[in-house]
């Protein structure tokens, strides 16, 4: 009986998390769209060339640099910031799962989820 009750709590938490994710996607899209409009208004008539990979300038390669380029209100900077918000959404989901497993006192899954979180943070922040 208590097992049944517990499972329902699980789904409620998941539902809360997934709604949060959906709003996150809407926010990220709105930021990208705003940046898109600014960018096209300024550079819409110039010509793109993506045939050869040259890589993005260093201001779009790290979390700190992207955030500082948003302050300059550059269209591309705003788009990159929106993309960063988007990448952060699944990571936020994992963070919330750590909390939810901790509330349930499920030690095994707190450890498992922390491992996943560490890998994600390494990928986003841990490189030079």
């Amino acid at each position, binding site marked *: 009986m208590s097992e049944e009750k517990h499972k329902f709590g699980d789904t409620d938490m998941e539902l809360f998390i997934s709604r949060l994710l*959906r709003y996150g996607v809407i926010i990220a899209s709105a930021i990208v769209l705003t940046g898109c409009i600014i960018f096209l208004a300024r550079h819409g008539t110039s010509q793109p060339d*993506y045939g050869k990979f040259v890589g993005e300038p260093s201001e779009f*390669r790290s979390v700190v640099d992207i955030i500082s380029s948003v302050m300059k209100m550059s269209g591309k900077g705003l788009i990159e910031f929106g*993309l960063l918000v988007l990448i952060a*959404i699944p990571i936020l989901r994992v963070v919330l799962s750590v909390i939810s497993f901790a509330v349930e006192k499920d030690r095994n899954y707190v450890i498992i989820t922390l491992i996943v979180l560490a890998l994600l943070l390494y990928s986003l922040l841990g490189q030079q």
Partner: protein
Amino acid sequence: MLDYFGFTLLLFAGALAAGLLGALSGLGGGVVIVPLLTLVFHVDIHYAIGASLIAVIATSSGAASAFVKEGYSNIRIAMFLEMATTIGAIAGAFVAVYMSPSTIAIIFGCVLVYSAITARSEPKFPDNFKKSLFAERLKMNSHYPSISGPQSYSVYNIFGGFSLMTVAGMLSGLLGIGSGVIKVVAMDKVMKIPFKVSTATSNFMIGVTAAASAGIYLHRGYIDPAISMSVMLGALAGAVIGARYMVRFRVKMLRNIFSIIIFVLAIEMIYNGITHKLG
């Protein structure tokens, strides 16, 4: 030559079609975005992979709440297997940096052929696994809703599933796809998890897997704002429309059409890879 206006508009339309087909067929739009960008728009494959990862994160996060509401996804199975997919994804992204576009194109083509075949037929796996004690200790066995009340299920062959998930993660990082087809095969066929639970859980895992490699692509300068914005918004719009009208379409016919498209793209990718047309 096309200016940014035209480029953005056409790319948006292409990504919308990809997202729509991906949602309607249940195969995900990720697999067609890289061929679309490289073959049609002549974008360098590294940029294409970065943009595709962005589209994959957007569509899977956007769809997640619909899947959870139905009560099929299993968060414990997802988290356990995400250890495998994130490690694989990071490794795959690192390897991709040192690979030539031609090599990536050929591997991509082969994975597309595999996806096209599994979309049409059922792969067979040995059926004689013992119940996993490990699954019991990690509380993976659960139940899902059905018309006749909650149906319980058990998880088998965890290590087989875990290994295949590592491969799925690697391909995701290497090619910028969600690897949903392989994830479902790992859960449904190898671990004997019910199909509906497998697809819902897979959708939940795809975003986390893609985020693991997206960070590395960002640091390497592969995530271009002008390409990614149209691909992200287009794929998302397509997926949202697709999810809304899913029931009205004949899924089986759609899957067949989609698998033919994928097959043609696969041949095109392999041909371009062999002839070094992608740089």
